[in-house]
C-alpha cells in the first residue's frame, strides 16, 4: 500500500508558523539570555564562596588547610601504596588447617565388682612420679 497520500496530508503542517515578527525578535531575546547567563554566578563559584565564608568564621589561616590537605593526600598515597598480601582469606585459613582430630570411641566402664575375681589387686597404685629417670641426679651430688 502506498503511503504517498499520507505524505501529502502531513506536509500541510508546514503551514503552521509562529506569529509574524517572531524570528525578528528571536535574536534579540537570545542576546538578552546570553547576558543574563554571564551575570548569573555558576554553582561552583557559589560553593567556593560559601566555603570561604565558613573558613573565615573559624579564624583558621587559609594556608593551614592547604597544609592539612597536603598531609591527607600524602597519607592516603602511603596507605594505598602498601603491598596487599598475596594470600587471600582462603589461603591463610588453609595454612592453619591441621588434620582433624579423631577421638576414639570410649566404652563405658562399670564401677561395680560383683565378681570377687574382678576386683583390682590391693597393691597400692604405682605412680610414675616415684621413679626417678636414670639420668636424673641430685644437683648437689658430686
Amino acid at each position, binding site marked *: 500500500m502506498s*503511503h504517498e497520500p*499520507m505524505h501529502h*496530508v502531513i506536509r500541510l503542517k*508546514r503551514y*503552521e508558523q509562529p506569529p509574524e515578527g517572531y*524570528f525578528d525578535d528571536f535574536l534579540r531575546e537570545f542576546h538578552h539570555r546570553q547576558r543574563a547567563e554571564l551575570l548569573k554566578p555558576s554553582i561552583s563559584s557559589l560553593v567556593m564562596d560559601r566555603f570561604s565564608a565558613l573558613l573565615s568564621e573559624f579564624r583558621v589561616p587559609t594556608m593551614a588547610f592547604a597544609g592539612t590537605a597536603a598531609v591527607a593526600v600524602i597519607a592516603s598515597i602511603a596507605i594505598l601504596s602498601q603491598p596487599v598480601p598475596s594470600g587471600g582469606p582462603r589461603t591463610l585459613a588453609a595454612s592453619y588447617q591441621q588434620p582433624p582430630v579423631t577421638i576414639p570411641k570410649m566404652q563405658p566402664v562399670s564401677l561395680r565388682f560383683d565378681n570377687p575375681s574382678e576386683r583390682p589387686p590391693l597393691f597400692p597404685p604405682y605412680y610414675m612420679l616415684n621413679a626417678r629417670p636414670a639420668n636424673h641426679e641430685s644437683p648437689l651430688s658430686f
Partner: protein
Amino acid sequence: MTAELETTANNDRELVARTQEGDPSAFDELVVKYSPRLYGLIYHMTSNHEDTNDLLQEVFSKAYRSICNFRGTSSFYTWMHSIAVNMTINFLKKRNRRQHPSLNDPDSHIENDPDFIAATSNGDPTKEVSIHELQKKLNAAMMKLSHDHRIVVTMFDIQGIPHAEIAKILKVSEGTVRSRLFYAHRQLQNSLHEFRRK
C-alpha cells in the same frame, strides 16, 4: 537538494570559523539562518509554541557554548539538528504527558494548496472540513506516534530532509529511517483515514 546542502555547508564552515575566532556576529548569522528550520523541527515535536521558544533558545545557547569543540567531522547543519533533536526528546521525556498543545495558526496560503483541497473535500464538494479541524486531527495523530517515529515524520514529511541526512542526524542507518517512516505512515493512516487522497 544535495547541491543546496553543499552550498549551505560551505557558508556555515566560514561562519563557524569566525565564531571560533571570537566573532559573535558570525554566530548571530547562524542563529538567524537556522532558527526557522529548527523552530519547525521542535514545534512539530512538542505542539506547543511556548515550549518551542524556550527550547530553541536553549539549543542555540548550548551550541554557542560547545562551538569551540566543533571539529567539522559532520556538517554544522547535521550538528545543530542533532543538538535540537536530542534536547527536544529529552524535554519530551521529562514533560508531563498531559501538556496542552499551543498550536500556531496555519498560514492562510494553505487554502490554495492542492493537498489541502484534496484532503478536505475528498472528492465530495459538499463535505467541508475547516482548517482548524484538520489541524487538530493532524496534531492528534502526530502526538500518538512515539518520539522516534514522530521525529522522522517531522524531518522527512514536513521539513523535506532527505533520508540520508536524517540518518546522519539521528545516527541510525538509512534503512532504519525508512522502516520508521513506513511504520509511522501506517499509524497515521489509521488515525487519518478520512483524509487520505484517492
